[in-house]
């Protein structure tokens, strides 16, 4: 007896109707979010959001566009050498900002590697770091763990998982697709999160979360929260930086693996280092063990090679992504022994 199913069809494109709000202050935005609760959707640059809406998978009643809130835009230099980047600052403005280029080139390079010129002109730094995963099952509307279901389609014997996680998987094997997020973790950025209870600062390292913490979210942001700014402290200003992104296409592609490193080297030895890899786990993956192991060591090939092996010691490949291990290993090696440009 054949299984007979009644089903509605796939229909993508044509955004369903919603109500659009364009508040001019954060308070106003928070009040709309409070009013609509889970029916509200926060719109920053929109590059990630419109996919969800056009796919008719997410159907908010109210869309809250943050684009008219002046206090969410701009870059401010902080006393002591840090910078504060308001969340709605475009990636292009981050890339071109003189203070960022001068002291935190790592972030400029990371932001410049994202997507395409038009997207960088519109996409925001807040949106880029907070964007949802690009797991193609999840983004196709499959009822997977992350979508509230009880299976991971990518982690089956037939699952197509070339782009998926080799570290930190817990039921879900999706990865963070952000190019700027690992730079934020490397630079010890603080993420300012505001809701009706006030504003709090969250370490970038804690801002990004894995499926073990909450399988349905990529960041600590919850309904009613708005990321207002990212503060980059002076801790790594003018350090020796290394950013590299490996992707299939040189433009408009997500990282297969990217790496962001900040180093302080003197006398040929690594004095301090922060080393973060993305595209390998649900959140930017900081290599604490490697950082500890290489501190005090010469910044050379040998240290790099050892660091690379150590970096992938705990990695577990899926059916189609074993290549990410040598790729990550080699990128860690390069990040350690690369001489500053």
């Amino acid at each position, binding site marked *: 007896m054949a299984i007979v199913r009644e089903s509605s069809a796939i229909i993508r494109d044509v955004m369903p109707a919603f109500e659009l709000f364009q508040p001019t202050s954060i308070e106003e935005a928070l009040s709309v979010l409070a009013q609509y609760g889970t029916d509200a959707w926060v719109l920053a640059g929109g590059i990630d959001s*419109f996919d969800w809406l056009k796919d008719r998978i997410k159907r908010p009643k109210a869309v*809250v566009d943050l684009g008219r809130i002046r206090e969410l835009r701009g870059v401010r230099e902080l006393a002591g050498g840090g910078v504060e980047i308001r969340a709605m600052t475009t990636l292009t403005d981050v890339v071109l900002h003189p203070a960022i280029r001068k002291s935190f080139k790592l972030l400029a390079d990371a932001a410049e590697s994202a997507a395409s010129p038009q997207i960088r002109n519109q996409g925001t730094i807040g949106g880029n770091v907070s964007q949802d995963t690009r797991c193609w099952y999840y983004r196709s509307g499959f009822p997977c763990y992350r979508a509230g279901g009880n299976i991971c389609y990518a982690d089956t014997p037939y699952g197509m998982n070339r782009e998926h996680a080799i570290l930190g998987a817990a039921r879900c094997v999706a990865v963070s697709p952000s190019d700027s997020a690992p730079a934020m973790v490397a630079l010890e950025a603080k993420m300012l999160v505001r809701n009706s209870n006030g504003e709090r600062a969250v370490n970038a390292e804690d801002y990004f979360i894995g499926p073990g913490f909450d399988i349905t979210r990529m960041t600590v942001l919850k309904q009613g929260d708005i990321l207002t700014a990212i503060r980059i402290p002076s801790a790594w200003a003018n350090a020796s930086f290394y950013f590299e992104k490996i992707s299939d296409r040189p433009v408009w592609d997500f990282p297969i693996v990217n790496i962001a490193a900040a180093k302080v080297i003197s006398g040929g030895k690594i004095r301090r280092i922060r080393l973060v890899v993305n595209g390998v786990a649900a959140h930017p993956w900081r290599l604490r063990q490697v950082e500890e192991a290489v501190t005090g060591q010469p910044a050379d090939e040998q240290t790099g090679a050892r660091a690379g092996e150590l970096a992938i010691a705990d990695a577990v490949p899926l059916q189609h992504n074993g290549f990410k291990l040598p790729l990550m290993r080699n990128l860690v090696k390069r990040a350690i022994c690369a001489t500053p440009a």
Partner: protein
Amino acid sequence: MVPVFAIQFWNSPEGAVPMSDNPGSPAKSKGLTRREVIKAAVAVGGVSASAYLFRGYIFGNQVRRAFGSAPGSMGRLITLNVNGRRRHVDVMPQETLAMTLRYKLGLTGTKLGCDRAECGSCTVLLDDVPHYSCSVLTQTVRNRKILTIEGLAGPDGTLHPVQQGIVEQQGFQCAFCMSGFIMAAIGFLKVNPNPTREELARGVSGNLCRCTDYHKILDALMRGAELSRGASHA
């Protein structure tokens, strides 16, 4: 309902339509004379009011919701600055700029290739900066200066130097991607007027060409950059 089976070549009522009267102009052999263009524009009449999009919703319950009273909620009748002209238009909350341009303002030179911010065919300039108009809500650009492919040529049909570069080099093949490439290039040249070939390629790298005529496109755009530097385009 009795439909009127008149096909209208929807030209921009801007009057900036560069259909030259010069007999030597290639536009002549395309078969559209200025008279025909004017005739079409007359037949179209008040185009922006008889919108093709969301007609059902204009009369449905969406109206009440769209004019909701919550703080910051938007009205639908807005004014846009398109190609230097103020255009009044009725815009739904979820409407993208590409759809408004194409279906309400008759500016069909802006193309929809993917509608997903991937191919660049819909690129327009917002305050001189290239954007994918398929992924911009029209409601969010009320105070911006919108420039489309139709706004480039002069009233006398004089081409923009980047357009001229393409004509000289026979750039592009099917040309579906062309207006997006032109707008992306013009936006990039405003920031970097004297690019190397590689820099220009990066500048227009958010645009796809499926005839993959990239080499000839870059020849044409480099020529356009050269002509732009020579021209006194303010």
